[in-house]
């Protein structure tokens, strides 16, 4: 009998990026006691984020991006600069790879395959490439950037459903020159919402990772009683 790992699906709704980071940390910390896997789903208000290779993005450049009305965040994930905003399905699997396979290379490939399958369900032909992420021709439809510590994953993927792609025009997405971005809506020439996409993502994820999914409870937003947090 093969025991398939149980993954809790947590729907966060539209949250600022910082709140997404805080909630990921809550789920990462849960792994200290036992492997309790979670799949966080959300959308973010407009934000540009950078990864551990943040030197290509000096302060003045980031200030320019803030002037556009977006938030800017430096993170500990892999990958270069990217954009998150409404209409983009952001998924943060917080898994202990010990219950799956202890290889980040395998894990990232699994995420790519999950999205390729999902796109297939919509009739969009997507593929992976030497550049991590999921592509439709020369246009990236889904960005991936993760962090792994003590075999626990955080950060994840961002799939453009009906994102306003003009936000990407202000950066070289993921540092890859000469390539573009796309979305499910652009490829299908109709509006494809995050809501419509979620069930397909969950199906593809369950299949690719050979796991069981269960609905989790959304944690309470951080209560600020006027005391500044540490």
């Amino acid at each position, binding site marked *: 009998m093969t025991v398939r790992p149980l993954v809790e699906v947590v729907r966060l709704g539209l949250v600022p990026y910082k709140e997404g980071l805080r909630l990921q940390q809550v789920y990462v910390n849960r792994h200290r006691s036992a492997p309790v896997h979670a799949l966080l789903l959300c959308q973010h208000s407009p934000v540009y984020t950078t*990864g*551990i*290779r943040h030197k290509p993005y000096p302060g003045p450049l980031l200030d320019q991006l803030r002037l556009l009305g977006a938030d800017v965040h430096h993170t*500990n*994930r*892999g*990958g270069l600069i990217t954009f998150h905003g409404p209409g983009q399905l952001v998924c943060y699997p917080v898994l202990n790879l010990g219950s799956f396979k*202890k*290889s*980040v*290379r*395998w*894990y*990232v*490939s699994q995420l790519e395959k999950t999205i390729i399958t999902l796109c297939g369900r919509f009739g969009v032909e997507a593929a992976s490439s030497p550049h*991590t*992420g999921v592509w439709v021709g020369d246009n990236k439809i889904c960005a*991936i*950037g*993760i*962090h*792994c*510590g*003590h075999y626990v994953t955080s950060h994840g993927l961002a799939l453009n459903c009906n994102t306003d792609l003009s936000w990407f025009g202000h950066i070289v997405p*993921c540092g890859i020159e000469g390539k573009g971005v796309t979305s499910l809506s652009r490829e299908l020439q109709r509006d494809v919402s995050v809501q419509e996409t979620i069930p397909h993502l969950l199906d593809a994820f369950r299949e690719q990772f050979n796991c069981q999914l269960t609905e989790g409870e959304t944690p309470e937003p951080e209560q600020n009683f006027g005391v500044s947090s540490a």
Partner: protein
Amino acid sequence: MAMRAALRCLSVNLSPRLPQLSSAAQVSATRLLCRSGFPRTLSTDSGQCTALKFTEKHEWVLVESGIGTVGISNYAQEALGDVVYCGLPEVGQRLEQMDEFGALESVKAASELYSPLTGEVTAINTELAGNPGLVNKSCYADGWLIKMTIEKPEELHKLMDQPAYDKFIKSLEE
């Protein structure tokens, strides 16, 4: 230092003749060099070198003259994929055993590195800034990450030797 030069010579000389030589065999060859005392440039102040020791997080440490050189194992570099960036600590940083001391990035994944011992960072491999792929190509030699002092030599005893580590990774693959 002499040890490292010998290791480099070893990897260069062996590769053309024995293209199938695995990193594990490289390590065994290193130990052969130690025991036989060949070449003469290998003799160190302490008169003895130690074999590679491994952590469960797949870092290795090699001690010579009271300084530990740290890197990641072949198993680890394969599981990571092509390394594109090495985030390393500052020289002088003090590390406790199992402290996170940096991260390697590959396939858009940042994976943390954990210190095998307690000590102070004395050097970082500056070659990796321009050539991070050394971690994949030469994980036991040119792809070394940091050097550190050894504050608690007893910690070395708790680490795995080559045979124990080989057994450990076999158990992971099952």
